């Protein structure tokens, strides 16, 4: 149960079509390989990129993860969900 395990899982999913196929075939079995809480599993299943970003995940990683599953045309959809970087910095803008 750790953001590091979430990051490893999302890295693995984001960078390999073969891994994504394995996940899509048996999502629960795939997620069980990582030390994830039920809440973290849900964030990955639901591709809640906004909350994953707020928890500290790298936005380049999240973009690759999301578009890996949804194709390049999903960029607009992805960005509509994403908080600003400024919202994560000290006083914001």
């Amino acid at each position, binding site marked *: 149960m750790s953001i590091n395990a979430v990051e*490893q899982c999302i*890295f693995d999913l*984001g960078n390999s079509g073969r891994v994504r196929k394995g996940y899509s075939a048996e999502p629960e079995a795939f997620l069980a390989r990582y030390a994830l809480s039920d809440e973290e599993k849900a964030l990955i299943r639901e591709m809640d990129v906004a909350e994953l*970003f707020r928890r500290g995940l*790298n*936005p380049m*990683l999240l973009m*690759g993860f999301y578009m890996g599953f949804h194709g390049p045309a999903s960029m607009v959809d992805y*960005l509509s969900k994403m908080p600003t*970087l400024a919202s994560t910095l000290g006083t914001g803008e």
Partner: protein
Amino acid sequence: MGKIVGGFMMPHDPTVFINPKKLDNSHLMDAYAEIRRRIVALGATSAVIVGADHYILFTPKCLPQILICLGELNGPVDQLPGLPGRPIPHNAALAGYIFDHAQDVGFDLAVARSLGVDHAIGAPAHLCLPEDGSVKTVAVYMASGVAPYLRLRRAHAFGAMVKAAVEAANDEERVVVLGSGGISHWVGTGEMGRTNPAFDRMVLDAIVAGDADSLLALTDEEILREGGNGAMEIRHFLAVMGAMPGGSGEVIAYDAWEGAVTGLGFAQMRPAA
């Protein structure tokens, strides 16, 4: 004794090549071509290309602060229109020499035996170096895309170390250092598509003046706020400037082009006379 004969900065924004809005990008391709002409005119034999991993190449199990590839290069692995993956002529002897020198003076460079590079190295290797393979690449990755980020000061010191290594080498190498990176850009965050021309201008002014100090004075928070997470790549420009102390720069082209998501700056650094 080898020599640093020049430095160049250029973007590697994938949307320049994908060009989703189908705009005229010929002025940008011309800027890459102009850098290639200048590199040929300098009689360069090798290019040290400094890029950022975008969390494509290195895994959460081993994220290098600085990595150098000692062997074969190919790519980009994330192929883009006009940038098909292919072998990239490399200079293993120079890479090994820089690695050894780095050990001598206290840099802890992670190494790749061989590497499929991403577009950060692939774009300049394909577009800024002559197609006949006469200028060979040494690929360097800095932690500019994935935290913990390399310190700005360390990126600058790395460039100085490369200069010392090249000058201590026996070979008659004529080396250009290429800093591959966008200026302002936000990658994968809600701001994506925004640029900040004022920040871009500040960075380019510093390059023209050869004023590394004003860039080194920036905090990471300032860069993230004014330039976005993509602007952390100014580390690569600082590496170029570190290799040319007392040098000065020239802007070859600049455009906050609406077809892309990045403040696109093309520049040359000249070593002090």
